[in-house]
């Protein structure tokens, strides 16, 4: 069989696969598609081995290349898979990275507690962290006379704050994670600086005598928010460690493994931050809810988060 005969006797089926590639992928007949795909692969291998005309090789490699992208697509995006990633993979990965998470928590909370005590004892120290207008703004936000607690002056309503929390908090969490790739320094920096900031404000507001409103405001959503930031920071530390101490892998391979390992943590944490933003905007800030009710709800949320990460639905 000459190369041209080979082409003319098979071109119809190559054309059929080319046409199927243009169709909606959901309507494809898998069996026919795969048969044609395998046949084209076989023909491509033949064409390469026997030096068939270049345009035949080119045409077959284009059609197999495109079909290859469809055949091997992972369908991770179904509802069931996303749910599984959130409820099974996410807590499992967090448990697998427990030392990193503890390190991240230490980096966040030690500066927070230290600065909190410092600004509680000497409130003027808060000015070394924020300027006086921000301090006054926070004081105003958490004073018991505020209509809605924790609301910025220029942001109108609960929806506004919801959007703000989404943008701000998830942005911080993502930063905590990805900058870990700079040998962990980025995560280190963002964890400590967020700890310093939060601690200083908390201590200052408490020193002003608004501790009651402030802590009942923070307690509920921080179950999700602080946990998520710690998780992202811990995942970032893992990235940094993979570059600093790659072990028996090459640095690049080590980084790729670490990134793949931690991606579901970041996904889960961002979902937690959406929950936190909703709670913070619509529940924590509501001045009409009694502080006792908020305290009960906060305890329930912390319990929920702890159970979520501690439980092992399938032995792992």
């Amino acid at each position, binding site marked *: 069989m000459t190369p041209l005969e080979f082409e003319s006797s098979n071109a119809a089926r190559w054309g059929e696969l080319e046409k199927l590639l243009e169709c909606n992928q959901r309507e494809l007949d898998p069996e026919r598609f795969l048969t044609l795909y395998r046949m084209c692969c076989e023909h491509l291998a033949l064409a390469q081995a026997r*030096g068939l005309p270049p*345009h035949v090789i080119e045409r077959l490699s284009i059609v197999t290349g495109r079909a290859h992208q469809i055949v091997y697509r992972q369908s991770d995006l179904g509802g069931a898979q996303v749910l599984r990633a959130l409820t099974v993979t996410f807590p499992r990965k967090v448990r697998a990275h427990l030392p990193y998470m503890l390190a991240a928590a230490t980096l966040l909370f030690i500066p927070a507690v230290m600065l909190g005590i410092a600004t509680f004892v000497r409130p003027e120290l808060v000015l070394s962290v924020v300027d006086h207008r921000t301090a006054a703004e926070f004081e105003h936000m958490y004073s018991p006379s505020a209509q809605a607690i924790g609301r910025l002056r220029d942001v109108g309503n609960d929806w506004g704050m919801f959007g703000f929390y989404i943008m*701000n908090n998830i942005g911080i969490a993502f930063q905590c994670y990805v900058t870990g790739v700079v040998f962990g320094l980025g995560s280190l920096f963002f964890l400590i600086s967020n700890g310093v900031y939060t601690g200083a404000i908390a201590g200052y507001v408490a020193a002003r005598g608004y501790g009651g409103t402030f802590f009942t405001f923070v307690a509920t959503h921080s179950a999700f928010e602080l946990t998520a930031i710690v998780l992202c920071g811990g995942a970032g530390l893992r990235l940094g460690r993979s570059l600093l101490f790659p072990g028996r892998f090459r640095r690049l391979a080590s980084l790729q493994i670490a990134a*793949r390992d931690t991606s579901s943590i970041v996904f889960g944490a961002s979902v937690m931050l959406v929950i936190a933003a909703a709670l913070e905007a619509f529940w924590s800030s509501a001045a009409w809810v009694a502080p006792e009710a908020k305290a009960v709800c906060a305890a329930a949320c912390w319990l929920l988060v702890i159970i979520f990460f501690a439980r092992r639905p399938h032995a792992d």
Partner: protein
Amino acid sequence: MNAPIDTIITAETPEGIAMQIRPAGFAVRGAAYLTDLGVRTAIVVVLISALSAGGHFGVGPMFIVTFVANWLYGIIFELLPAAATPGKRIFGLQVIMANGLPVTPAACVIRNLMRVVDFLPLLYAFGVICILLRRDARRLGDLAAGTLVTYRSEVAPSGAFGAGAPMPSPVALSARQQAAIAAFAWRVPRLTPERAEEIAGLAIGPIGTGLANAPMTERLVGIARWLHGQRRR
């Protein structure tokens, strides 16, 4: 084997074929990025002005729109079947895994979040240097996620050879020589006649002995036609 003269990467598939992957270089990726920047800005401007005309929810949706446009734009578009943001699609690019497989959701998230680090210290300096230094033009996000931005090849090439009457080769040709002659004959229509003749003069070797004055391009094309089974004039 000599160092390759192009940036084509070969990936083997489970079917045992060697896929040729063409990584997209700095220029086209930069152009795609700038297009995406324009699209993103347009989306933000349009949505925000539409929302502020509605005005029930205050500034909240604006924050969310900004957040989505900044962080999720790439992730959302690259998870669609085309595996490309609008900018990449316009320039015929797509994102795949470095081993030729379709991009996974996890890789997609990582490569887009890592943009922050590629941006450092400013204006994507790190990412640009990384792309320029590597044959496969991957930025840090691509490296961490194990992805690759490649050209999507969609147009099936025409099979037309140049002009030349079929004729058998006067000497026996090895498989590599046959392939080289066929590749040349296929390129002839896209070369100027003078250039084609120049290349043919270099390539013709022993086939051309004793034919110094005949047009060598036609001769090679004729041999290619013959090799492919087109034996009648």
